[in-house]
């Protein structure tokens, strides 16, 4: 099978409109004959489910938590981009497109990213109509701030809780459809497998997390909006339950997985405190608008920050990147922090942090203004660390945050399994090798509100409303496989806990497949992961039973999938012998240690096809061509 991204013909700016004009439609009266499954209820899932139900389709929504309001989009802090140009600072659809493509280091599709920029404005319109309380100017209009990788202010925000407010907007829209009878909610459900009948996605197998029962759900199409796989690293800014299982199961059923090695490491997180740490907390990138990043000039300088005079501080981002300064993209900021720490200039107990200092901004704008702008982030920092960032500079450190890789999808957001769609962080489509700040919310909502409704309609119009049958053999087989796997996890009764294995896997990935990657390190990581996986299946200890709420069992299933998925992640990192965006291969760097891209050999999407448990996956390439922007060496100097 060759990859066909199904990019519509015509000029870049007209592609989406042309496509819409020619998409097949399902008539309003016929839509109720179609049942759709949406897995995940974050921004992408909730917005898709609500919009599809508004059109008249019957939708089933599945999520892990007790309520669909809790998807991890809720934790997004800083904001959402749109090309409104309300600030009159020269923004446009083209500029947002250009910044996003460049920010992704020219490893995303032009057509997708252009469409994203075009739709950005309608997202803001819709969210405002839903009652999302965005920040306002005194005249009553919407306020904007700037974010990394851009020289305009195009980010809309609601204090430091933009994701929460957008998600509650989508959640409200979803609940309205529950009331109208178009959506059925299935909270506390975990998708264990995808069911494919005659080559098309026709349903899923879920585990009811309260009763432990496996259930079959049939539908005309399946939508995965199940987020990213950052928790493969054990410590990340993801929620504890975020996992790769749904996407990985789909991969094993024929959906190709694209660019798994593209893992974003966010520069501004609260540093690790020690053993027992369960997750890392992000401090919004918006803080870099007013916070200045620095380390002591002298390696090994352990004086408290107040005792280090101005002349002995190294504001390395401002020095090295004068035009973007502290607002360079995340990959650049993270790599530079690591570089400083590798030179023993890191601060804090572990020497793995750098300072983010608000004292200059406080002097310039007044402490009250700064606290008003970032108050809830400062409070959060103080709660976790016990230090007031208005008194002492914040300590920040890079952490795994977002995964640009994901299920390969065409322009219609359909995977290589017909009838299976992937949205939001679960797909790979728009961010290339590095995502810009405030773009994830934009993409999740563009996918759910505006892109999927017409494209899934076209698929349904073509396939017709024949009722899928949950009694089909494929359902029975998938359910039996799920039951057997649960039984195997419970029967091992070994000596090590699930978390213990997960932590070990995370350390291998962080050390060998994190901010800096090499042939030797990655090769070693591959064999380490294989060893951990073998031991896992011989020595894991999962207490309790299958027919009850069993949180250890839930985690065990997810970690088992991470242990397989990690090999794919590492294999992809090995095969991509260039540096681009987040992916820094030590073998491919310039004399000033900047990432060196290799467009001649790697200007493509790598999509991995599952073969079997015994044979390695096959790597396919989707070439990327650029017509509107010339891939340049990314410079933020």
């Amino acid at each position, binding site marked *: 099978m060759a990859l066909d991204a199904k990019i519509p013909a015509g000029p870049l700016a007209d592609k989406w409109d042309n496509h819409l004009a020619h998409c097949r439609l399902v008539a309003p009266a016929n839509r109720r004959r179609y049942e759709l499954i949406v897995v995940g209820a974050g921004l992408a899932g909730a917005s898709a489910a609500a919009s599809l139900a508004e059109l008249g389709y019957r939708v089933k929504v599945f999520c892990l938590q007790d309520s669909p309001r809790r998807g991890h989009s809720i934790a997004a802090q800083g904001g959402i981009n749109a090309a409104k140009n309300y600030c009159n600072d020269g923004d446009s659809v083209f500029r947002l497109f250009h910044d996003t493509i460049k920010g992704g280091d020219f490893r995303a599709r032009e057509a997708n990213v252009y469409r994203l920029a075009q739709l950005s404005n309608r997202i803001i319109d819709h969210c405002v109509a839903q009652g999302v309380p965005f920040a306002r100017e005194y005249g009553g209009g919407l306020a904007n701030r700037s974010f990394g990788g851009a020289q305009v202010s195009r980010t809309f925000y609601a204090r430091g809780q933009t994701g929460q407010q957008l998600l509650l907007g989508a959640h409200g829209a979803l609940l309205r459809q529950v009331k109208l009878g178009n959506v059925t909610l299935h909270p506390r459900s975990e998708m264990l497998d995808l069911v494919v009948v005659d080559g098309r996605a026709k349903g899923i197998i879920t585990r009811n997390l309260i009763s432990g029962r496996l259930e079959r759900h049939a539908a005309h199409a399946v939508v995965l909006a199940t987020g990213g796989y950052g928790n493969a690293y054990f410590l990340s800014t993801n929620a504890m339950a975020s996992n790769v299982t749904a996407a990985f199961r789909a991969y094993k059923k024929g959906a190709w997985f694209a660019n798994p090695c593209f893992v974003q490491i966010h520069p501004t997180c609260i540093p690790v405190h*020690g053993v027992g740490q369960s997750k890392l907390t992000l401090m919004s990138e918006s803080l870099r608008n007013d916070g200045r990043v620095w380390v002591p000039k002298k390696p090994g300088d352990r004086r408290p920050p107040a005792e280090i005079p101005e002349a002995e501080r190294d504001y390395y981002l401002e020095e090295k990147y004068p035009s973007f300064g502290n607002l360079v993209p995340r990959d650049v900021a993270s790599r530079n922090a690591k570089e400083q720490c590798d030179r023993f200039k890191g601060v804090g107990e572990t020497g793995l942090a750098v300072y983010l200092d608000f004292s200059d901004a406080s002097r310039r704008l007044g402490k009250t203004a700064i606290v008003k702008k970032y108050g809830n982030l400062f409070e959060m920092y103080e709660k976790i660390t016990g230090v007031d960032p208005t008194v002492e500079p914040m300590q920040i450190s890079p952490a795994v945050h977002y995964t640009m890789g994901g299920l390969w999808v065409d322009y219609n957001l359909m995977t290589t399994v017909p009838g299976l769609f992937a949205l939001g962080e679960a797909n790979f489509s728009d961010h290339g090798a590095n995502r810009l700040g405030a773009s994830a919310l934009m993409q999740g909502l563009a996918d759910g509100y505006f892109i999927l409704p017409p494209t899934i309609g076209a698929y349904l119009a073509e396939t017709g409303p024949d009722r899928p049958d949950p009694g089909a053999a494929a359902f029975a087989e998938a359910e039996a496989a799920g039951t057997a796997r649960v039984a195997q996890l419970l029967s091992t009764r070994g000596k090590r806990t699930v978390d213990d294995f997960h932590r070990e896997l995370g350390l291998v990935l962080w050390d060998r497949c994190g901010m800096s990657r090499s042939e030797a390190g990655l090769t070693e990581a591959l064999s380490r992961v294989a060893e951990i996986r073998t031991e896992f299946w011989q020595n894991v200890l999962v207490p309790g039973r299958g027919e009850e709420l069993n949180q250890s069992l839930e985690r065990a299933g997810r970690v088992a999938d991470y242990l397989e998925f990690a090999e794919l992640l590492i294999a992809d990192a090995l095969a991509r012998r260039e540096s681009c965006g987040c992916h820094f291969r030590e073998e491919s760097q310039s004399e000033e240690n900047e990432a060196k891209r290799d467009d001649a050999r790697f200007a493509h999407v790598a999509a991995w096809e599952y073969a079997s448990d015994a044979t390695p996956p096959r790597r396919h390439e989707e070439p990327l061509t650029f017509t509107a922007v010339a891939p340049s060496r990314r410079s933020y100097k």
Partner: protein
Amino acid sequence: MSRAITLTLKVWRQAGPEQPGRFETHQVGPVSTDLSFLEMLDVLNEELTLAGGEPVAFDHDCREGICGMCGAVVNGHPHGPEPGTTLCQLHLRHFNDHDTIVIEPFRARAFPIVKDLVVDRSSLDAVLIAGGYISVNTGAAPEANAIAVPVRRAEQALDAAQCIGCGACVAACPNASAMLFAGAKVSHLALLPQGAPERASRATRMVAAMDQMGFGNCTNVGECAAACPKQISLANIARLNREFLRTAFRGEEDGEG
């Protein structure tokens, strides 16, 4: 600076909704005071698992105080004794060596216990389903800046909209009322011009849903606001009452103004 402390935990254990529950006592530690409360429960669960026991079931997800999934009553306080703090953001530096900590699930008729510290809060979504939204279909919105909202209104709306739906207000209330939860949503939407067209029916429908789900009545005790991890103000209950009465006097047809 971090210290290492040892704690005695009295944890509520209950196998299922219909099973009898009881307190179980465990020692945990020494653990670092840098750990969060939930990380301390992780440590306990790892020890219980390795000793052949069954770990304590508790809800949690984002662990940064925003998803609203976590919550338990700690020493009589929902989310523990620190004001404005979810359980996941409560750190052990607020406890002393050899403290005894009592941990129970949120208790309310509308929140049946599922297992140990896990309760079923779907009744909260049922209240929102009754009317906690603005009815606008995707695609139907006007240009965003066509609707001007004064800064103060927008800020007040956001103050109310911060609710994370954790249910601590219900657990803290002697009547197990959800008035603060419902009041926050009604306020958020009533303060914005976009919410005006459905204003007249929203409060009555949500109040009816609260009654139906088994939440109690509000008697102005104020424990809800004291326990709220997002410090949602009692003024939101006053606004809910006002919205409710407004419709009682003027009828559902009178949506504007």
